[in-house]
């Protein structure tokens, strides 16, 4: 076992950590926004909102992320670019990574939002409405802030899953942390050093996410 390969290829790992953090952050932010709207649509009384949202969630939850990545990278994105931007360059693997992680996370986050909002006493909404607030305003000012606190543990889990799942992007040669391990292992014939190194880095990142980010949010949003 030769651990010096990790040092020799340190740039690959450093670049990998940067891209993993970038991919996860973008997917968390975009996935949460998209997931909120899909979750709200799923709770709507209107069939034209409810049905597509339900189909979306089932599709992205019911198929492997690995397949979604391959499909989006090799078929959907080149197809869209060929159709709408034939002159422009098809974006790189990193972009395919943002898109697939965001779309996938949004499906799970939509369900977390729906569960969080539905777990809240309907009296909250009724009270807000009786004070003359519109449905949208009651949702925004009364229901979502309270539900958000209840969602945090589940959201934290989803963010951690997202961070780890980003390693699947190695298959499309996205320069993230999983790719660094994969590439170094292939090129050096060393197995433990590259895989354990990236495993340890993932562990540090997930611990940071759960202990610092999620716990920080919980503290900030809990009632005083």
């Amino acid at each position, binding site marked *: 076992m030769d651990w010096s390969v990790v040092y*020799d*290829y*340190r*740039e*690959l790992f450093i*670049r990998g950590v940067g891209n993993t953090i970038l991919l996860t952050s973008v997917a968390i932010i975009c996935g949460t926004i998209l997931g909120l709207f899909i979750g709200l649509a799923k709770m709507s009384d209107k069939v034209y909102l409810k049905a597509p949202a339900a189909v979306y969630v089932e599709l992205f939850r019911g198929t492997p992320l690995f397949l979604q990545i391959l499909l989006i990278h*090799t078929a959907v994105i*080149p197809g869209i*670019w*060929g159709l709408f931007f034939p002159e422009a*360059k*098809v*974006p*790189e*693997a990193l972009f395919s990574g943002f898109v697939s992680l965001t779309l996938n996370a949004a499906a799970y986050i939509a369900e977390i939002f729906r569960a969080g909002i539905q777990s809240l006493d309907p009296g909250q909404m009724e009270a807000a409405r009786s004070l003359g607030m519109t449905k949208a305003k009651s949702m925004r000012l009364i229901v979502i802030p309270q539900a958000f606190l209840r969602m945090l543990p589940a959201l934290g889990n989803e963010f951690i899953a997202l961070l780890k799942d980003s390693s699947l992007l*190695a*298959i*499309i*040669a996205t*320069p993230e942390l999983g*790719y660094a391990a*994969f*590439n170094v*292992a*292939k*090129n050096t*014939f060393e*197995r433990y050093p590259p895989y354990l190194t990236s495993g340890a880095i993932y562990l540090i990142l997930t611990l940071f996410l759960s202990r610092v980010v999620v716990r920080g949010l919980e503290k900030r949003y809990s009632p005083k």
Partner: protein
Amino acid sequence: MVSACGTGGQQAAGGGSGAGATDKVYVVGTDAAYPPFEKMEADKITGFDIDVIHAVADAAGLKIEVKNTGWDPLFDGIAKGNVDMGISAVTITDERKEKYDFSDSYFDANQLILLPEGSTVSKLADLKGKKIGVQSATTGEQVVKKAFGDTYEGIKGYDDTPSAVDDFFVGRVDAVIADNAVLQDYAKKMSDKKFKLIKDDSFEVEHYGILMKKGNTELLDKINQGVKTIKENGKLKEINDKYFGQ
């Protein structure tokens, strides 16, 4: 992408050592995603290498079973003993020879650069700063690393060559570097697309060998005898003509 393609035989996964000496079925691993050397055709593994290894085994009087192990598991499997031999367009290199034994060469290859038709690139050095698609851990990747450094940001190391070529044709990488035979095979199939293939004088000719666990001289001698036989009796040339023309 590890799939067992056998229909029985006495070796279970992870085993294969205790079989009788005379009718032992040798497990040959390959990474069947490298046409025309090896590919999956429906549920069958076919290709130049597969024809070669069957001819070699016939000549050497060995029974074999070819399995699609994938690239990395092939090397690991041979080291562990789950796989007896590997034939997968593997170039004989000093680095690999430290860990594995190789048969005599059965094919000579050289690297080519796949470029867009109008490209002004005329040699590897012109690709500095550009994105180059390769299959990870192949000689194609090694020449790029040698030229631009081990951690050159523009290297896109794919798990297989078809994925690199795919990304070349949609414009995600500026060039692909791989073996001549593989790229020429694509050239035949992709006649509707515009591209060119160039050679760089710094690329050395490579020799493909059949690899096996270090120290297994008995098997190595038999295989080398088989390779020699098919070279002499014209069988190798016949297979060569079948795949690459005259």
